[in-house]
C-alpha cells in the first residue's frame, strides 16, 4: 500500500514535468516575486538600520527563504478536492481501497517536491546572484529547516483539505477558498513578517496555525529564532499538525453521510 502512495507522489511529479511551459514560467515567476518584495522592502527601510527587529539584510534573506518554503508547501488541494466533490468524481475515488485524503496529500507532496527542486532551486541560484542574500552555512540548520518546511507542507495541506471538504457542506466554496488563500499568505508571514504586526495582532496570531507555515521556519532559518527556541518552534508546528487531524477526520465522516453525488 505504501508503494501505491509513493507512486502517487511520483506520478504527480511526472505530470507536472509534462507541462514544460509551466515549468519555465514558474522559475521566472518565483524570481520576480522575490525581486518585487526585495525592492519593496528596500524602499520601506530607506536609511533605517532595523525595522521590527529585522535588519535590511535579514529581511532580504527572510523574503527569499519564505518564498522558498512557499514553493514547497503551496498546493491547490483545496481546489482539487472541491472540484472532485462538485463534479462527482469523488465517487470513483471512494470505490478504491485507499484513503482519499491520503492520496490527495501525496499528490500535494509530489507537487511540492517538484516546485522545490525545479522552480525554487534554480530560482534561488538566480536570486542569490542578483540580491544580497546570506544563507546560513550550518548544515544542522539546513536539516532543521527541511523538517520545518515539511511541517509547513503538512499544516498548509491540512488547511487546504478542510477548505476543499467544505464543498460537501455548501453549494459553492469558491469564496471560502479565496479567503483562505489571502489569509494564509497574509497571516503566515509571506507578505509581512509577523513581527511587523501590531502587538495585539501578533499575540492573536501566535494562537493560530498560520504562523507555523512560513513565519516559524523563516525565522529559524534566518537566525532570528535560535537556541532552545528552535525546538519550541518545531514543537508548535508538530502540535498544530496533530491538532488539525481531528477536525479533518470529523469533516470526512460527516461528509460521507451527507454525500450527494452531483450529476446523478
Amino acid at each position: 500500500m505504501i508503494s501505491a502512495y509513493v507512486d502517487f507522489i511520483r506520478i504527480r511529479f511526472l505530470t507536472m514535468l509534462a507541462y514544460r511551459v509551466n515549468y519555465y514560467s514558474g522559475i521566472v515567476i518565483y524570481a520576480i516575486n522575490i525581486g518585487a518584495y526585495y525592492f519593496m522592502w528596500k524602499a520601506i527601510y530607506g536609511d533605517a538600520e532595523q525595522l521590527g527587529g529585522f535588519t535590511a539584510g535579514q529581511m532580504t534573506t527572510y523574503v527569499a527563504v519564505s518564498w522558498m518554503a512557499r514553493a514547497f508547501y503551496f498546493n491547490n488541494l483545496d481546489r482539487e478536492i472541491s472540484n472532485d466533490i462538485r463534479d462527482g468524481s469523488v465517487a470513483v475515488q471512494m470505490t478504491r481501497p485507499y484513503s482519499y485524503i491520503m492520496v490527495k496529500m501525496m499528490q500535494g507532496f509530489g507537487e511540492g517536491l517538484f516546485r522545490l527542486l525545479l522552480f525554487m532551486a534554480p530560482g534561488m541560484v538566480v536570486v542569490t546572484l542578483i540580491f544580497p542574500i546570506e544563507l546560513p552555512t550550518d548544515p544542522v540548520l539546513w536539516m532543521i529547516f527541511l523538517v520545518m518546511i515539511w511541517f509547513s507542507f503538512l499544516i498548509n495541506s491540512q488547511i487546504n483539505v478542510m477548505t476543499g471538504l467544505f464543498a460537501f457542506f455548501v453549494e459553492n466554496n469558491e469564496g471560502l477558498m479565496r479567503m483562505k488563500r489571502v489569509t494564509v499568505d497574509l497571516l503566515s508571514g509571506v507578505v509581512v513578517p509577523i513581527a511587523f504586526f501590531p502587538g495585539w495582532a501578533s499575540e492573536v496570531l501566535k494562537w493560530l496555525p498560520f504562523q507555523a507555515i512560513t513565519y516559524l521556519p523563516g525565522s529559524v532559518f534566518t537566525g532570528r529564532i535560535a537556541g532552545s527556541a528552535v525546538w519550541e518552534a518545531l514543537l508548535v508546528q508538530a502540535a498544530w499538525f496533530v491538532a488539525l487531524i481531528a477536525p479533518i477526520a470529523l469533516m470526512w465522516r460527516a461528509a460521507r453521510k451527507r454525500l450527494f453525488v452531483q450529476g446523478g
Partner: protein
Amino acid sequence: MLAIEVERLRKQFKVQKNREGLKGALLDLFKREYTEVTAVKDISFRIPQGEICGYIGENGAGKSTTIKMLTGILVPTSGKILVNGYVPYKDRETFVQGIGVVFGQRSQLWWDIGVIESFRLLRKVYRVDERDFKRRLDELVETLQLGDLLNRPVRKLSLGQRMRCELVAALLHNPSILFLDEPTIGLDIVVKTEIREFLKRLNREHGTTILLTTHDLQDIEALCSRVIMLDDGNIIYDGSLEELKSRWSKGREVQFQFSDPVSLQALSALTAGQGVRWTKENEMTAKVWIPREMNVSDVLSRVVGAMEISDIKIFETNTDEIVREIYRTGGSEKTAEAENGEALPAMAGADSRD
C-alpha cells in the same frame, strides 16, 4: 451463496430549496429550507453469485443511487445491505478490494498519464501480485484488443477505447462482483457488441457476478438472465427477461406480402372467429395482429391455404416497447388493467424476428 443482499433499503436526500426573488435569496442566506427527496424507497432484492442482472429504470428512478449504496459510496438512510458478505459503507477499504466498478460517464483512469501507468498504479493500489497482474493484463488486453493503446495518455483515447480501458482497470484485481453504471452509453454499435461479448465471457469463465444499469435494452437482451425494474424509487418488476416479455407483450404481428391485390374483408373472412385484427399497408401487403395466447400457426395455416403469398414477416413486441409501455403506465397493476380492453399501442418500428 448470495452476492448481493438488500433489504428494505432506503435513501433520502435533503435538497436545498431556493426561494424566489431578492427577498427569498436574502432569507436563504440566513435560514435554508430543505426538501426531503426519497430516491430509493425500501427496496429488497437478492442476487446470487454468477448472475448477470440488469437494473433498469427511467432517469431519476434511483438506479445510480442504489449502485452507489451497493459500492459503498453512499451511506443508506435505512435498511440492510450485504455485498460479498460486507456492509459496503462500513468496511469500505476492505470491501472494495472484492468489487469492480465502471461508471460510463466518469473516468477512473488518470487523465494525464499513459494507460499502462494507470494500470500499474492500480496494481499497487489493489496490492495485486506482479505475476497475477501480468497474466491478468495480458488476458484482458488480448480479449479487448488494447495492445497499441497502452502507451497513450487517457485524454487521447476515443470514448470506445477509453471504455475498454475502464473495464480492464475495474477487473485487474479480479473482483467477484462487477458493477457497471451505463457502460455502453455513447458507444457505437461495434464497440457495444464487443463489450457485451466480453462481459458474457467474463461471466462464463470467471463466474463474475455482474450488475448493470443501462438505458439500452439491447444490453439487457444480450446479457441479462434477470431484470430488476425501478420506477420512482420502487421495484416494479423483478424476474427473468422472458417472463417480462411474456407478461407484458401484447401479442405479435404478422406481415404478409401477397402476390395479388387483396381486400380487408376477404382477409377478415378467412380468420373469422379467431379474434385477430387486420390492417392494410398497401395494395399487396397486410398485417394481422395475433393475441399472445394464440398460436401464430393457426392463423398462418388459414391464410396460406387460401392466398398466394410471396413473403411473411413476424414481429414480436420488442423489449423497448414493453418497457416504454410499463414506464408510461407506471407499474404492473395499471398495466394489467390496460391489457383488458384498451387498444393496442402502435407497433411501428418493431424489430423483425423469425
